[in-house]
């Protein structure tokens, strides 16, 4: 049977405010346990929440960026359950009246096509603390530093049809929240976490199958693997005559499998009701107008501009627009060199592999945009060839010079364009390979084509790569034919 996968994602983005959503505690990552847990965060009796204005502004930014309806009033509700990392015995969240309503996000698939993914809602809520399971005489330790950290929970429609689409969607959200400056996107530190609702159904069937929720998947790679694994599990289960149970599952990256979280399985009844300690949050139109005016160019807009303004391919434009920092870098290179296609090739090619190799972010690039742009200028004015440019780039990366010009000068890499000098050098190469020259002249057109490359190689070798390849080709042809 042909199966179709249906996926909906819930992404928790930790908002990059200074303080917590309902208290003045810091939210710095990695602090000593419980040193960032105030009276409010600890749920001390008598304490009360006051909402952080910046969290509201950030949620509105997100809402505007996904073309969502932002209701004039949103309401906080309490989700009641007992857990040691939940100090008050309820999580302050939003239920019936979220701050961000229906919106959408267009994602680019690998084949360059775009797909629109519906976003059901996004709401503000507080994060819980952490249970540490190292053994304290058979006890668990509770750290409440994270309790009260502002989260934006972004809920997608079940519009996603494969693990790859899911990853593309999460990447698009990741890019968006970073563009907006509302979340640092650091998945390793849990700043962006993803719950995947996965179900399968026979192709053509309209109703959804029973879904399982995979909790807290914390990397792009694991999202893809976890979903693929879960889809396979469900298909096998159904084909063997079994039934998918609606449950929460946990992905174990070490074993590459998902397993049921039995402890959370017991029937939860969260008893949501409007939080009586907080009042309805009013969003004025004037405030939204002001937030809208402050929005940066968003990934989709940037991608479109890269295509129309610079003539980049959809793929290149998508890759470069994926992160604001990368896009900024590319644009800076282009400003210096004035050749967007060359700039794009270098940024996505040599520069990206260099960064990948050393596991660096674009902000940490050892080659600055000015340096790279300056180098590309020298390719364009024929001072160096593309091949030499790679040497120059490596030297820049190794810090062997402040600019491409300096390296070209100090290493003597300037391209030879004097036809007299090239002719002299070619004469020497042809004399040294007289036998091959004769063979060449005796061959037919097809064979000559192959042999020609040999002479070019010898010539470039003799010039240590510095001879202008165009001129070498032209003069060599003349001499061999002559």
């Amino acid at each position, binding site marked *: 049977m042909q199966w179709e996968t249906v996926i909906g994602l819930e992404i928790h983005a930790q908002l990059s405010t200074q303080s917590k959503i309902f208290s003045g505690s810091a939210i710095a990552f990695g602090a000593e346990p419980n040193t960032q847990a105030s*009276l409010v965060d*600890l*749920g*001390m*009796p*008598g*304490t*009360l*929440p*006051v*909402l952080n204005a910046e969290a509201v502004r950030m949620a509105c930014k997100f809402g505007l960026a996904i073309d969502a309806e932002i209701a004039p009033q949103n309401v906080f509700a*309490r989700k*009641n359950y*007992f857990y*040691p990392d939940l*100090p*008050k*015995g*309820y999580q302050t969240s939003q239920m019936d009246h979220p701050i961000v309503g229906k919106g959408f996000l267009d994602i680019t698939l690998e084949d360059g096509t775009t797909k629109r993914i519906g976003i059901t809602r996004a709401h503000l809520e507080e994060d819980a603390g952490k249970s540490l399971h190292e053994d304290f005489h058979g006890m668990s330790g*509770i750290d409440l530093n994270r309790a009260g950290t502002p989260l934006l929970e972004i809920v997608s429609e079940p519009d996603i049809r494969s693990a790859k689409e899911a990853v593309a969607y999460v990447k698009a959200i990741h890019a968006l929240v970073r563009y907006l400056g509302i979340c640092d996107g650091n998945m390793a530190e849990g700043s962006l976490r993803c719950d995947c609702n996965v179900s399968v159904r026979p192709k053509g069937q309209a109703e959804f199958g029973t879904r399982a929720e995979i909790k807290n998947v914390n990397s792009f790679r694991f999202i893809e693997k976890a979903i693929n694994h879960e889809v396979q599990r469900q298909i096998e289960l159904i084909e063997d005559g079994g039934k998918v149970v609606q449950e929460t599952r946990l992905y174990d990256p070490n074993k590459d499998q998902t397993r049921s979280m039995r402890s959370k399985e017991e029937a939860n*009844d969260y*008893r*949501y*009701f409007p939080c*009586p*300690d*907080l*009042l309805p949050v009013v969003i004025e139109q004037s405030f939204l107008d002001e937030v809208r005016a402050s929005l940066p160019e968003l990934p989709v807009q940037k991608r479109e501009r890269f295509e129309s303004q610079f003539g980049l391919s959809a793929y290149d434009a998508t890759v470069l627009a994926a992160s604001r920092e990368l896009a900024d870098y590319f644009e800076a290179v282009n400003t210096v060199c004035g050749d967007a296609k060359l700039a794009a090739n270098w940024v996505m090619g040599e520069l990206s592999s260099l960064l990948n190799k050393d596991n660096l972010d674009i902000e940490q690039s050892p080659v600055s945009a000015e340096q790279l742009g300056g180098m590309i200028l020298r390719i364009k004015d024929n001072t160096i060839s593309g091949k030499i440019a790679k040497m120059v780039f490596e030297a820049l990366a190794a810090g062997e010079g402040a600019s491409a010009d300096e390296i070209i000068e100090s290493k003597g890499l300037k391209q030879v364009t004097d036809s007299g000098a090239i002719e002299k050098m070619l004469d020497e190469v042809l004399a040294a390979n007289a036998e091959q020259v004769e063979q060449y002249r005796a061959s037919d057109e097809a064979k000559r084509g192959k042999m020609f490359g040999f002479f070019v190689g010898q010539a470039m070798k003799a010039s240590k790569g510095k001879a202008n390849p165009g001129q070498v080709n032209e003069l060599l042809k003349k001499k061999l034919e002559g």
Partner: protein
Amino acid sequence: MYQLTLAEIARGLADKQFSAEELTRSLLARIAQLDPQLNSFITVTEELALEQAKAADARRAAGENGALLGAPIAHKDLFCTQDVLTSCASKILQGFKAPYNATVVEKLAAAGAVTLGKLNMDEFAMGSANESSHYGAVKNPWDLTRVPGGSSGGSAAAVAARLLPAATGTDTGGSIRQPAALTNLTGIKPTYGRVSRWGMIAYASSLDQGGPLARNAEDCALMLQAMAGFDAKDSTCVDQPVDDYLAALSQPLTGLRIGLPKEYFGAGLDARIGEKVMAVVEELKKLGATVKDISLPNMQHAIPAYYVIAPAEASSNLSRFDGVRFGYRCENPKDLQDLYKRSRGEGFGAEVKRRIMVGTYALSAGYYDAYYLKAQKIRRLIKNDFVAAFNEVDVILGPTTPNLAWKLGEKNNDPVAAYLEDIYTITANLAGIPGLSMPAGFVYGLPVGVQLLGNYFQEGRLLNVAHQYQQVTDWHKQAPSGF
């Protein structure tokens, strides 16, 4: 000295008839001597009180002259007091020395008030007899075999017995006004949001409001003046200037329009109380008031709505008492669920558990609309009744309670009967309007209270009416024999 009101104490201190330290020592001695009969204090903060009294004397010597500078008071034991046991009269807060001060505590301390201690109450403010306290029942100084009312029963008993001139209380469904009525005191529940709830341990967040109990309206005005005001730490606290309550007291009552809701004088009201209330009306007429019959048709629905909303909020508010970060933890929990269930099962008393269960049920899947949402709709109907009434009258007057103080233990086994005692007071909490109870006489030696309800932020008007009444009557000056 113990007979002095706050206003008299202020004059005595200003005239150097006595020092705050002398006054404090004398009251501490009186508490030690008499409170064993009443059980009104959970904690007496002798050291802190003397320290604060000396500081007040020093401030006065330095030229300060505030109305509460050196005035002895005490707090209902649900206001957090730093490093002092704050128990909510519950075993679950065993050993809970609050790590911070409630805003009300801070404000009164800043005004120079001297804190004599923490007062007994119904556990988590749930009750109207002060019998649900883990620290034992409080007795009514007017008759030691009877209840003082609740939940601010310790505050009421202590002030009525002249152990101190004024105390803080809280009122979620009548918990200031009802004990004030049963102990011959004046007590006011302000408009919701007038007094900060920061540090006031919540029972039902959308209904709770702090306020004072004292022996007359003037002292209530002095206390409320210090307690009220905006607090950025409480999202529900109102950012609006506080009226000058003291200045409002002296206003004549000429032209005052009083509404008498027919629902307050129907079946269920002890006729002897009804008579006393009507006598108050006659007195107020003499002072220039006019009277109009009005109707609050939804009043009868207030009790069911209240007993959904308050327990629902309480069930959630009390989830934080889980034996993990503070308070009582059961012995040797065998696992996490055991920790929760036994800590809470052993730590909470019967009435608290009942209300948590009622609230949990009312919010649970499938029942939310029929209970919680329905109650919130009735809440609006009740508010609408008041909005309509205050278009026609300035204050609404009626009995505070349907019955006199009952015998200790009389309603212990019948929570529903006890809930019905709140009939006249809870509408003010549901609507959020201010309400005041003042002495209106005695029936067989037991005090009767009359309640005044006002429009939003009309605390000054209520205190004014009560004060003017107290200028021409002396019910409020009667003291229980033996105290």
